[in-house]
């Protein structure tokens, strides 16, 4: 099991996956907006999305969990 975390503070612009989706390592799962820039957040390893922990429009800090993956 793994979680995908925000690598910087920002606002969740779009959640690109939903529970049940299979994702590959390196795939974009969330698009953050920080300082007027779109920052794609990628899954470091592959898995199945168990839970989406962030909603579009949420403010997140660096290190916050965004998506929980299951093997």
């Amino acid at each position, binding site marked *: 099991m793994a979680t995908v975390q925000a690598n910087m503070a920002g606002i969740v612009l779009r959640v690109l996956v939903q529970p049940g989706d299979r994702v590959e390592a390196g795939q974009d799962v969330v698009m953050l907006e920080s300082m007027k*820039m779109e920052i794609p957040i990628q899954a470091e390893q592959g898995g199945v999305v168990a839970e989406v922990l962030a909603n579009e429009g949420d403010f997140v800090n660096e290190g916050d969990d965004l998506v929980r993956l299951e093997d």
Partner: protein
Amino acid sequence: MFSKVLIANRGEIARRIIRTCRRMGIATVAVYSDADEKALHVREADEAVRIGEAQVAKSYLNIDAILRAAEQTGAEAIHPGYGLLSENADFARAAAERGIRFIGPSPEAIAAMGSKVAARETVKRAGAPVVPGSEGAVADVEEACRIAAEIGYPVMLKASYGGGGIGMQVVRSEEELRKAFASNSARAKAYFGNGEMFLEKRVERPRHVEIQVLCDGHGHGVYLWERECSIQRRHQKVIEEAPSPFVDEALRRNMGEAALAICRAIRYENAGTLEFLVDEEKNFYFLEMNTRLQVEHPVTEMITGLDLVEWQLRIAAGEPLGFRQDEIAREGHAIECRVYAEDPEKMLPSPGTLTRLVLPEGEGIRNDVGVESGSEITPFYDPMIGKLIVHGRDRAEAIARMQQALDAYVIEGIRSNLPLLRAILASDRFAAGDTTTDFLETWGKR
């Protein structure tokens, strides 16, 4: 002259406007979002009004909240700064309807330059050169491919209502154009509410050179020379200088006269900037007009000795320009570095707490900053936290002075682009004035 002015902006530019107002004896009103409650511009203004939550859509872009703040405080005029609402014709119109002077051009002039397609038509009518292109929006990807074949690849695909590089891409083949069209159009629609696209011939290895103008309400206009702004990342400027090391007297005069012809065509009033691409043969082509004060205006102030904010206020108050073209100074050389809160290599944002800030001081050094030690750099706004500007007798002295100033600049707690700025200033390519818009894309690759 106005007795009280509201500044509809934040950060370094709000402080810079307050500074000139104070010198002129004009009272100032700041506006702020929840994220900026403790910001310097709020403390320095004579009055400050909260206008909403941190996100710009809920505060600094909230036209009604800003106009209410102006009415509450009795401000007679609004200075919009740059970005945010500064080029919003509806804002200018709404202010005028409530009897508040918008410090800038008329809503009609803003609108005439707001759509790139309309601006291009205006510029052609004024007899100024434009880059060959699609002559208006293209209906669909098929028409785009047909026109691109006519003008020849590479072409630039651009969003009619775009800005900041969003919805814009270089395409080098029909295959690339087909791939890029839908995604850029969708992005432009999401950002600007309109996905209209157009095409232009790509000018290879161009320089970005812009002309600063001042036009009063009595039909008199002057140009305050050029600024060289080719060093950009993601189509945002990083280093600017004046004069341009590439521009000679004939080109300067031709570009300045073209700029004034465009201004006359739209009855432009107040400060404005005409951006041009200049190719290696010194042909120039109109790019766009910024109908507001520009971030990099200090380099022009350094070489002319004029205070552009002062002239914006005077023009908005109905005063005539008190000088002619041949009376405008052009002394020495000025360089500006934009200090960004971002990783210097990946150029990604770096929000956080600025634990320590030490600004360089000395002869010919100017700092326009919006932050101090302890400031929170939030992800809600632009990553630019300040500008460092230097002036020297010539370009070599300006470069040396900038290098010393950058060495003395201290930022702790967040990453900044200071290491990149130092490396650029120390490079042979910058010293030679070999600055084309691909400077940073090809950085380290030449």
